């Protein structure tokens, strides 16, 4: 009996302590990959992993002469779960670089966590809230994927001048990323003379949009929709079933491949929808075409990579390029970060470099949804806005004075 007990106790203790003692080998570098593998954004999370893996296989799984080991962490798009997953990757698995997270408030929460982990370098996945890098940035948090307001470059002006929409209603999810997108859209649209007369903020994971659809004023020229994943599909199919006729304007992830490839009669409402974002499906630049080919090799790939695959690709690519710069030596995080800050590299979507807040300056694409020869819905490239910075070309002080994005800010009724 005594022996049994003691053995059991020893076994229990060993189980608890051993994983903590496991040391990394010298010839491997651990990179954490944090994305939403559960919850409403699962499909997006899985596509982001494909993007990261493309960057990794391009480099042959090696960087700076060392082997890269990717350890995955999962969140459900809530900030708490993202921090918990990040803690596990950093404190238990001992990653020296963490790529992620995927969505807006997760990014802000992980940035705050990054402040308490000065030895670890955080490279953003696709989270695109403005204040992840704009206000109180963390010195070890880098964003090569730009923010949601930058993604909107060109859209507001196009909607007002070319499409002739003067009066627009907004339907968007109720958290920091859609706030940022609406901010980016309205910055141009209101400047051009447009009015936004109604804003509906819906919770993530909302299923029933009938009351939202009913509340949209009849006299609007178009509806600006910034919803993602399952939320976008649910809204669009219910909008179509309700006989909605107002044309749509899309947020960056509303008319993304994760939505365009979903089953159902979304074509009727989606074709002709203008949108803007960091990618365009019909981009014929050779770098983009090569990226799409590499992407299609991965398991379960969409006909064209989503912007999540693209963002994680760029983040992982930057991590690898900077590792090459420092010859895989992670013993001095400051040197690695200097290498990251100085990066300026050619991506499938043009040159990317960082500003002093470690937020990317990159090209943005204005698109319109069309049907391609195979019957797939794709985003046709309309125009490229080159090298958009975080303040959208506005003077930094002036931009700061516009205030933090929120439900009420900006407003032009």
């Amino acid at each position: 009996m005594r022996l049994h007990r003691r053995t059991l106790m020893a076994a229990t203790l060993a189980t608890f302590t051993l994983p903590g003692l496991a040391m990394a080998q010298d010839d491997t570098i651990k990179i954490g990959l944090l994305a939403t593998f559960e919850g409403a954004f699962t499909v997006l999370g899985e596509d982001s992993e494909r993007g990261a893996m493309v960057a990794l296989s391009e480099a042959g799984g090696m960087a700076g002469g060392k082997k890269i080991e990717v350890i995955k962490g999962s969140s459900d798009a809530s900030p708490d779960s993202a921090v918990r997953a990040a803690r596990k990757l950093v404190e238990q698995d001992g990653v020296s670089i963490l790529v992620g997270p995927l969505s807006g408030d997760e990014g802000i929460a992980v940035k705050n966590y990054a402040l308490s982990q000065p030895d670890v370098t955080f490279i953003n996945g696709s989270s695109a809230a403005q204040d992840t890098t704009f206000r109180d940035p963390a010195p070890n948090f880098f964003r090569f994927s730009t923010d949601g307001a930058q993604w909107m470059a060109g859209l507001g002006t196009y909607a007002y001048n070319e499409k002739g929409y003067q009066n627009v209603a907004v339907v968007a999810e109720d958290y920091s990323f859609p706030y940022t997108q609406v901010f980016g859209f309205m910055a141009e649209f209101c400047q051009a003379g447009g009015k936004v007369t109604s804003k509906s903020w819906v919770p993530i994971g909302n299923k029933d949009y009938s009351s939202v659809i009913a509340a949209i004023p009849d006299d609007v020229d178009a509806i600006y929709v910034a919803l993602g994943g399952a939320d976008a599909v649910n809204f669009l199919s219910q909008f179509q079933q309700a006989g909605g006729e107002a044309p749509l304007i899309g947020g960056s992830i509303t008319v993304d491949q994760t939505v365009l490839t979903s089953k159902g009669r979304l074509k009727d409402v989606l074709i002709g929808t203008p949108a803007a974002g960091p990618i365009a499906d019909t981009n014929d630049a050779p770098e983009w075409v090569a990226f799409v080919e590499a992407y299609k090799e991965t398991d379960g790939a969409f006909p064209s990579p989503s912007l999540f695959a693209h963002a994680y690709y760029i983040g992982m690519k930057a991590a690898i390029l900077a590792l090459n710069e420092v010859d895989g030596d992670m013993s001095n995080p400051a040197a690695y970060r200097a290498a990251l800050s100085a990066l300026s590299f050619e991506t499938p979507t043009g040159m990317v470099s960082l500003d002093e807040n470690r937020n990317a300056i990159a090209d943005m694409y204005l698109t319109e949804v069309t049907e391609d020869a195979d019957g797939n819905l794709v985003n046709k490239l309309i125009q490229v806005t080159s090298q958009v910075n975080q303040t959208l070309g506005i003077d930094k002080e002036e931009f700061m004075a516009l205030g933090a994005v929120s439900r009420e800010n900006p407003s032009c009724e």
Partner: protein
Amino acid sequence: MTTEPFPDQAPARNDLIARIGAGHLALAAVLLVFPFVASDFFTTQIGAYSLIFGMLGLSLMWLAGYGGMVSLAQITIAGIAGYTVAIFGENSADVHGFGWPWWVLVPFAVLIAALASALVGWVSVRTSGIYTIMITLAVATAMFYFAQQNYTLFNGFPGFAGVKAPVVFGIDWRDPMPFYFLSLGVAILCYLAVLYASKSTFGLTLQATRDNQRRMRALGYDVTMHKVFAWFLAGIIAGLAGILLVWFNGRISPGTINVGAAINVLIITVIGGLRHPIGPFLGAVVVILMQTFAIDIVGAERFNTLIGLLFLVIVFVSPDGILGLWEKAKAHLAPGSLRSDI
């Protein structure tokens, strides 16, 4: 984590060790040594986190095991305490944050949680069985959506960040070791309180009510008040857990109190076992370990399936959860010492 039998129900009054129980002493030794041999991650993210969720399970076990009332609202009660700390204490969200000192804040948050719990209890005691589950699920869901969409009080989806544990006696109580011992101390207090309460007059009355409500009413007991008071006590435990949880995370948002979290607490309690207050803590350790490490075993796409399967197997093999498994294992380990401990 325990490998020891549970204490006798009727210990010899004059023998201190027998009274405390050899099992408890050995368990206490393991828990005290644990943070010194484990990494910081295991001390806080597994150890302290399991203790916190064990306390939430304990508050449910108290209601369900002794009172026959299965509640899905325990995480909601904890969330109310957590939000109270974030709103009346300090946070970095620029919403409220009155900066009350901890020695006012903690009792206040516990009181609010206990009152909220009593209110939930008062609404739900008129129902029984599946209807109690449904009504508490409704409370939990309503509270989640309310917190998510209300910006004036709860700051909506992002919730509150920058909530810090107090620095008392020069110790930052959120550092790994102090936080572990803080959680351990509070958990032990709650555990002993439940053990004591279950044998008190009130606890026995509550159990009698669980077994035959109509007879207790006929005997002249105010059944409703007894149950509501049991909810109030459960609220104190859940409230303490909620305060620790918000200090642990440094933040609170609707994601902390969503339906998934509510069901998590139920799973922890069922997996652990409802027959003894130690059950929820065992369940918490198993569930937290699985939820943390399953992703390393099967990869990102199917780890929730693995977690679900394991829970299914435990409940299938032993309807009493891990406590039941332990009973079975004990018979194999020590054929000579088969006693009925519980």
